[in-house]
């Protein structure tokens, strides 16, 4: 899904004016290497998140072993779609944050809510400078609050829109996975039930999203910590009658 400049040049002039690097310079206007959908949902023990391990270069499926879900601190997971280099930059910011938080060693630690709020500030401020981090981020985690363990799942995107929900998806996942999640998500699913639901969504995305590849990673975050499982593939079924002899009824002139 290449993002193109509006034909009337209205977008370009705005950012040229705002750029601090000097007259005639421009900040990133469109992404180059992108990841596709990420989906996540709350379940009994915490939050489960999944995505494929691909990164596209325009319409080319260029990289096939990319990890788009990472652990943040002790209590959270972050998953990203969009420009992969911007995700790497975000991970660097989060690294600094979590490191200084850890060095305090004072019994306090950054929970998923704090990380989500921090990222929202970063994304929104970058957008206001016409220099966005071209990502949709999903932040999930579990942290013990004064009222017991609290599961958290939220998202923030490149324009700073943010919200919390029981199930979240980015990119194509919004159109293909969310309807399934809305119909079938329940409170307190077991891990196995949650994985089944996630795989159902991933399979639909694999069939219908041309930027997805058949190599997925599932991750979970519970009070015990974060676990990112090794990549694996889903079984697909292409044995439909209509796919055999595809050119059988075709009209051709050569």
């Amino acid at each position, binding site marked *: 899904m290449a993002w193109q400049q509006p034909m009337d040049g209205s977008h370009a002039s705005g950012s040229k004016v705002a750029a601090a690097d000097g007259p005639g310079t421009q900040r990133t206007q469109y992404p180059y290497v992108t990841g596709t959908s990420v989906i996540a949902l709350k379940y009994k023990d915490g939050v489960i998140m999944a995505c494929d391990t691909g990164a596209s270069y325009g319409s080319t499926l260029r990289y096939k072993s990319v990890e788009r879900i990472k652990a943040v601190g002790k209590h959270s997971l972050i998953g990203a779609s969009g420009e992969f280099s911007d995700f790497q930059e975000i991970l660097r910011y989060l690294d600094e944050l979590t490191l200084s938080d850890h060095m*305090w060693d*004072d019994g*306090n630690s950054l929970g998923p809510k704090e990380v989500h*709020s*921090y990222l929202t*500030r970063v994304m929104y401020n970058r957008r206001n400078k016409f220099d966005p981090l071209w990502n949709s981020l999903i932040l999930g985690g579990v942290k013990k609050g*004064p009222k*017991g363990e609290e599961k958290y799942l939220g998202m923030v995107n490149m324009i700073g829109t943010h919200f919390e929900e029981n199930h979240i998806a980015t990119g194509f996942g919004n159109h293909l996975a969310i309807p399934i999640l809305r119909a079938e998500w329940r409170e307190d699913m077991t891990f196995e039930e949650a994985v089944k639901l996630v795989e159902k969504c991933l399979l639909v995305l694999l069939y219908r999203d041309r930027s997805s590849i058949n190599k997925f990673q599932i991750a979970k975050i519970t009070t015990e910590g974060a676990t990112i499982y090794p990549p694996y593939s889903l079984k697909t079924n292409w044995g439909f009658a209509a796919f055999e002899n595809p050119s059988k009824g075709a009209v051709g002139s050569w």
Partner: protein
Amino acid sequence: MFRNQYDTDVTTWSPAGRLFQVEYAMEAVKQGSACVGLRSRTHAVLAAANKAASELSSHQRKVFRVADHAGVALAGLTADGRVLSRFLRSECINHAFVYDAPLPVSRLALRLADKAQVCTQRSWKRPYGVGLLVAGLDESGAHLYYNCPSGNYFEYQAFAIGSRSQAAKTFLERRFEGYNDYTPDQLIRDALSAIKETLQGEKLTSSNCTVAIVGRKDDGTVEPFESIDGKKIQEIIDSMEAAEEAPPPPAAAPAAGAGAAESSSMQEEDKGTDAVPMDI
């Protein structure tokens, strides 16, 4: 302390390795009217003796709420204290804006201490002439810190600053070991008793003291930092006086010494020494 040739500038060391201007700033704290702070595992209480310039005027405000989860009591140049309270409030608000969470008290105390340190190392500045007792609540429980004009800060189970604070400290030293398990009500009573010690015979009433409390109840809900209403304080004072026929409730025996033996939090153990920790 006497005047000497090394005390004009804050940026001049004495041959003995002292910064006299900083020490003079700490003297200003000792001249202010008394404040005490004490804490249990879940609650922290601050109390201040109110001093009015004359019978005609209102008393100086010494207890400030810094955020829902934290507040300060100060002694010394209250104008400096007001400015620092504004700084603390601003730090808490900025943190809450970015992280949607309360600024942990230890980190708040550190920022205040770093700000105070700057004034001890610039020739065109002077140290803040106010000592602050910072009380607050965070994930790891209730905390009490004392921030000094020198830029040092320590965590305390209980502490007192200002004029005649030694009397309050002596009182607290005898009882602090049980504080971790005190109820909020017991903490308030001990705070009032400590302030009473600093009044040296003058009668303790709700008009010459201020008490504030912050804490977390057993069910997890937070009681935000708030000054206790004067009427309620008078009731507590009256009931304390009524109970004075019998000796005050004995401090709870230290539970396996765990409460008193916490590593960095028990500065109140200089029993019998004259040097106050902050003088270093």
